[in-house]
């Protein structure tokens, strides 16, 4: 036994390196490269602030992801509640001392970088809930107490983000949480009834929306209502994507973005620019890369021994999928515009940090796949 452990320790790092999921790793690298190229294009074919910043962040966070993946999954399991509490604290801090930009308080100033805790919450809520359900017996999952507590875990950060105000991120946090609940085995009827309830209460919710949010919903329903105002983003985005055609306009030749017709091309609308320049084929390739990433994440979950790792991987993979779907649907005019970045592609440190932490934990689950958590 001792021998085994020693042998284990000696070859620990090597074994872990060998155990890394290289398909996932290379997919992330390719995605990172694509996102850098796209960022370069948004800067008009020059290495300007966005490209440089995105590059540095990607490198740092990628290395961080590798580091995380060498840390035992047990550590992340133990960190579940604590990290959640920390982020919650940061959210409360944001409300009081956050930096205000374009009408909402989303960032806190950490001197060397500004961080958006709501983005981190998207990952850590999964971690927290996965830990919560890890030990729970099947019959307890649907107990009133468990459901209530998990809903509170979801609701508190969600409401803290809503009052920033940031409807998009708060919805994504809620979705991440609900995904965990689904995998944890919460009864189908809860989902069914809450769906029903939300549809019924939709008009009431709409009446509580802020005027600009109402406008977004109306604009989504009919973008031509105000083509130069609220509908501008959707219309220009559709024009950009549609004009890309099968093969696209070519790298650095996307006229819609280059000529500044596209709004927020660095962040939420980055896919529009990509799609304009690389066309249908490029877009499908990007989707396939994402699909492969998600597949690998879920596969890691399936191969993991511990329930916590499985739950985390499944939930994380699904959340990433939902983020992608929401972002693309919004850009393609299938959903109203809510602020939701495209993982890794979009410019934004916090979002990238959260995604990379997520991948790091997944990778850690891979390197420690035979680790069982008591």
């Amino acid at each position, binding site marked *: 036994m001792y021998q085994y452990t020693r042998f284990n320790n000696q070859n620990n790092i090597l074994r872990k390196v060998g155990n890394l999921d290289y398909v996932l790793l290379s997919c992330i690298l390719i995605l990172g490269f694509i996102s850098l190229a796209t960022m370069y294009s948004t800067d008009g074919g020059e290495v300007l602030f966005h490209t440089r910043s995105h590059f540095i962040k990607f490198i740092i966070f990628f290395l961080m992801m590798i580091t995380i993946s060498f840390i035992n999954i047990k550590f992340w399991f133990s960190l579940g509640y604590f990290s959640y509490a920390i982020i919650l604290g940061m959210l409360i801090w944001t409300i009081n001392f956050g930096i205000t930009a374009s009408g909402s308080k989303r960032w806190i100033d950490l001197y060397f970088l500004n961080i958006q805790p709501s983005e981190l919450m998207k990952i850590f809520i999964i971690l927290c809930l996965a830990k919560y359900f890890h030990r729970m017996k*099947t019959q307890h999952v649907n107990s009133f107490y468990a459901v209530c507590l998990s809903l509170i875990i979801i609701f508190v950060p969600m409401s803290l983000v809503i009052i920033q105000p940031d409807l998009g991120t708060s919805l994504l946090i809620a979705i991440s949480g609900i995904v965990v609940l689904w995998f944890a085995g919460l009864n189908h009827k809860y989902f069914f009834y809450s769906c029903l309830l939300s549809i019924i209460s939709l008009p009431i919710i709409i009446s509580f929306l802020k005027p600009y949010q109402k406008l977004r919903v109306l604009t989504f329903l009919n973008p031509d209502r105000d083509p130069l105002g609220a509908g501008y983003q959707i219309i220009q985005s559709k*024009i950009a994507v549609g004009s*890309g055609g099968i093969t696209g306009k070519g790298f650095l030749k996307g006229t819609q973005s280059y*000529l*500044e017709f596209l709004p927020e091309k660095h962040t939420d609308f980055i896919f529009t620019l990509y799609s304009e320049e690389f066309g*249908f084929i490029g877009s499908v390739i990007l*989707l396939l890369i994402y699909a492969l990433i998600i597949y690998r994440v879920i596969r890691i979950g399936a191969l993991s021994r511990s329930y916590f790792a499985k739950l985390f991987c499944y939930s994380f993979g699904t959340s990433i999928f939902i983020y992608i779907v929401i972002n693309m649907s919004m850009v393609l005019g299938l959903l109203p515009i809510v602020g939701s970045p495209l993982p890794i592609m979009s410019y934004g440190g916090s979002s990238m940090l959260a995604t990379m932490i997520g991948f790091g934990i997944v990778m850690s689950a891979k390197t420690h796949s035979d680790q069982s958590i008591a």
Partner: protein
Amino acid sequence: MINLSDNVTKLNSLNRRMFILATAKIIILGGIVSRLFFLQVKENKKYLTLSDKNRIREWKLPPIRGEFKDYFGNTIAGNFEAYQLHIIPEQVEDFRYVIFRVKELLELTDKQFNKILKKKNEIKPWETLIVADNLNWEKFSKINNHLYDLNGVKPVISISRDYPYKENFTHVLGYVSQANENDILTNENIKEKFVPGLKVGKTGLEKSFEKKLIGSNSVERYEVNAYGRRISQLAYQKGDKGQTIKLTIDTKIQELANQLLEEKAGSICVMDIYTGAIIAMHSSPSFDPNSFVFGISQDEWQLIRNNPMKPLVNKSLSGNYSPGSTIKPIVALSALENEVINPDFTVHCKGHKNPLELYGQTYHCWKKEGHGFVNLREGMKQSCDTYFYEVARRLGVDRLSETAKKFGLGKKVFKDYFDNEKNGLIPNTTWKKNVLGKNWLLGETIITGIGQGFIQTTPIQLCLMTSQIANGGHKIYPNIVANIDKQQEDKFSPLYKKSKNIKIIQEAMFSSTNEVRGTSYRSRIDDPKYQFAGKTGTAQVKKITEKDRELDLKTFEIPYEERDHALYIAFGPYKSPRYALSIIIEHGGSGGTVAAPLAKELFKMIIDRHEIRKNHDTKKYLNI
């Protein structure tokens, strides 16, 4: 073991749910791909068009206007390079400094300066502000010398209209000026080609040939960004210059006409009697059309507008004058044609003591002493009014008007070349009944016989009439634009019943100029090469009262507005006629003393230049 079995159930549930979601994910992914397919493949064309509409904008440049040439190919309305000064405000670091510096250098007045500032506020910062549109070379070079100090100022050479002969062709060509709203609304062509600063014809041939002259715009296609700023030029499509239009006018004769009419109000028209080509057509006083090209100053405009000699009126076409005695050839011809008289018909002119009396009205001859017994030839030669009173009385106004109209009086000569051309008026009994609602009076017939009363003609009509008498009574179609030979079917069709009658009139006109006691005898040229035949006319502007007759004032003693118009029509050379002319000098006095001497000058030059003209383009001449 309970724990273990629980774990198994949990994992089973987890995997089952994963499977459900995976299926859902594939479906959703399929949905997104199909949406992409719909946008990028199916609707690609639509969005591509929309994207191009977004990014491509066209800028039209002013077209280059066609030129006008005279018969010999001299440019009479051309284009020149105008020196302009442009500023793009956003490219200037310190606009205030630069604009004040420019003001200093160009010595702009405060008024001009404020106008520029006002213009600057109306345009977008990246649009071109034209500070000066026509600088002289001195100022232009001054600006160029100071360019180091004028960051963002661009000296530009642009194309603009130029009339090298200044006032000589004003009434023929008209002038160009900035297109206004009315021009754009009324002319489709201008609307289509309009760009700010476009200059269009305002009057004359410049206006009526707008469609041919205007040319087509050069187009610059630019890629613009979301804010409308030009990013790069995609294409440059060169426009065509407008057509060059060649006129039949001889600049030398036109210039002579201008000289002869200097400081007079009046008109000279010269026509080729076979081709109908206008050799010269001038209305005096004229003005320099160049001053309209860049907008005329208020003072200059007032000066032109308030001039009592009316420089703005094209007297050759829109001047309605009583023809006076110049109508007499037509009266005589009509009487001969209708066989009311024969050439030997004689009337006794008894002078002022014994005037013709009809229904209590008296009709005087111009000559106090009377002409005695006159026949047709003598009547024409001395322009005896009494003779033509009698002829007109016998002829009647209806037959007279018929002949007059046949010879081109009372209707527009150039159908729609000139929008200011007047019809003139050849009265008859039905006209008076219809228009004035009154019956024709015999007295009116009598004064019509000497070209007074209702009858009104324009100088160009008189010129046409003379031409058609001179060419032996054949119909011609006057034309001012060379090479547009609309072959009219009835060209050269006879206007007479007996050609002998035309000959008689021609001879009578010859005697009037070349025989002793002829009204224009003093203006004759004896050299048969230049010898011409003519008829004077003195049109009364005001009815002569008994008191006037007693005073018998000299022309210069009468107020300007009440003086008679002096007219003269002629053709030459008499032996083989080629050219006809009409001269009118407003308030000039007697036709014989004021108008006829001009004909002498004109014929000398016209006939001298005939050989040159003939050799220039022999095809155009019929050898009759």
